[in-house]
């Protein structure tokens, strides 16, 4: 079963995201601060497949710090950044550094939970593809 970590300082947000993702059959953990999230990433094994994190928590760059922790724990962990509507600069920065995508929390007229569900699926596919590639490379190098 795929394992997801949701980090957000608002309980209502965490619960809503967790509920929706559990519906898709994922195992979802939550963390309510940047620090708690990073600790979970570093200690929980096997590593999370996807981390969904709020961009702004303790600091405006909380998302970046979570990304760094996730990538140093498992280079193929995918990260989706949740961000406030119209405030994407930092989220884009996260993508430049390897995050899978970002989702704005409040896009008028869009059901962001479905969007998030879809993005998560895509993220998992990329992770899967990455792992397949890695395995092939490993086999190839062994075969040599």
């Amino acid at each position, binding site marked *: 079963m795929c394992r997801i970590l949701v980090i957000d300082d*608002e309980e*209502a*947000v965490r*619960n*809503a*995201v967790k*509920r*929706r993702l559990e*519906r898709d059959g994922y195992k979802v953990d939550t963390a309510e601060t940047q620090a708690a999230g990073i600790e979970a990433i570093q200690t929980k094994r096997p590593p999370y497949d996807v981390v969904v994190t709020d961009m*702004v928590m303790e600091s405006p760059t909380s998302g970046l710090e979570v990304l760094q922790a996730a990538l140093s724990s498992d280079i193929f962990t995918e990260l989706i950044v949740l961000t*406030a*509507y119209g405030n994407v600069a930092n989220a884009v920065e996260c993508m430049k550094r390897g995050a899978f995508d970002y989702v704005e*929390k*409040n896009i008028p007229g869009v*059901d*962001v*939970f*479905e969007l998030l569900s879809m993005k998560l699926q895509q993220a998992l596919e990329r992770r899967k593809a990455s792992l397949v590639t890695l395995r092939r490379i490993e086999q190839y190098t062994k075969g040599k």
Partner: protein
Amino acid sequence: MNSDEYNGIIADPAFFAGISRLVVTSDSIDEVLQTILEHSVRVCGAVRGFLAIVDHDRGELDVRYTAGEGWSEEKRLDRLKVSEETGRGITSHVAATGKLYNAECVDNDPYYIKSFDDVRSELAVPLIDSHKRTRGVLNVESSKLSAFGADEERLASALADFAAIALKISRHRQREKALVQIGKELHGFTDSQVILQKVLDVAAEALKFEDCSLFLIDRATDKLVLRASRGALKTRIGQASYDIGEGLTGWTAKQAAAVRVSDPSSDPRWAGRFQELPTKDVGAYMAVPIQGRSGLIGVLRVQRKKSPYKWFPNDFTDDDERILTTIAGQLAVALDNVRLMDQLVKTERLAAWGEMSARSAHMIGNRVFAIKGDVNELEYMIQSNSLGEGEARKLTESIKNGIFLLEEILNEFREFVKATQLDLEEVDLNEMVREAVEEGFPKRSQTRLNLKLAEKLPRICADPKKLKRCFCELMENSVNFQPDGGEISVTTSIADARSKKWLKPGQQAGRYVQVRFEDNGPGIRQENKPKIFNPFFTSRAKGMGLGLSIVKGIIDAHEGTIFESGTPGKGAKFTILLPYEESVCKSDRKRK
């Protein structure tokens, strides 16, 4: 005086040394002039003498000092009309001409008026100031014919000069005092019409400017608008205005240079639109620019009535211009400070607004996100036919709560915005506190309430709804933070110095009433004290945490202050100070 005695005085340096010492050291102009007069009578060998001071406004001589024999109270109170005509008195003639007059035989003198029976000869010398104006007349009389010769004339003139010097020193002291007082008034000046007016009053009275008006440039219209006046223009403050360049006042602003004219209505620049005096009465006009740090702020102008006495010109002197320029300089510094303060307040408020918008957008965004999550779940359950009654109730409940939270945020936002928009009326503070306590204090409570309202509390000018909102908030806080009983004290009183030290320095001189809410709950932790009035600081999970910042906004808008001075662990103590003055309830009070 025989010539030996006279020569004795001339030879005795101690005589003049004594007088000059007195002039320099004495603080009392009366003492100096009286002494000089007594010396004059003695050294001239006169039977009596007097010293009359010119009243320039009335064109009269005021017999203020007398010496020698025969003075009755009635004669002492005499006032003499100044006149150069014959038959109007020697003193009057000397005052008008500014020249010494020696009547060797009064019986044949064309100017002499009889006042004492024994007088045979009379000597009168004028007191002339550095502007060649007659300030007074020193007069000595003798029962002998031709009692006063060239020596006496010279001696009396010298003594009259001493008197003139003493008058000049006294006038300088008076000006210095006035300038110091103006400086004091302007120290800590915030933005009060009352203080501007007071400065003009001090300037006009002490410096003998009969009328005085202050025009300040209105940035919006770029006109000079009347802000304070002593004369007939008092009723047109805020209305009377000149374009820059219009009239003498406008010229002063345009050229940023002082104007001094003695017959203003004949000046080509004269517009005569707003005068403190009727145009025909304006004798002298002077205006100086008020130069602030970043350019011209306004114009300070003074006028004098036309003197009906041609021998007393009423022009402004170099001294007058220097004084007025000094006052204008002091005003400029004070007004500049006010402007800086205003800018600071605006900047602070703007920063608060930025913070406010960002925070509320964030909060609203998260709430809406959560509601959307509930709706998403609800839709899914309906579509998959898995919606049980319990689930449905749980989700709608959650949606409802989310919406209530949004409305609470919206409400606080609105109150924060409106906190500074006041609808002022005269209110009874005790009445309002009583109402707020009745509403905010729960009927069945373990907490005791101790309400102490001061009798005869002055009425204040306030927005009753907003103020009540403040009292209710504080009441609610006190009740909520001590659920298990205890005591809440609510008191009203006149603010004392200990409370007033919490006001801004510029406000501390004002008169304030105070309302205090005291409880013995947990109080406010020392590290939180500086933050409790900040927006979004909250220890309760309700709304956005704007409660106390709204209260502070409302109190600030009333030009009052709020502070917390309780002991952490022993209870909170909130005090509100609100100003009371007769003049506060003007309809034009600024809404910031």
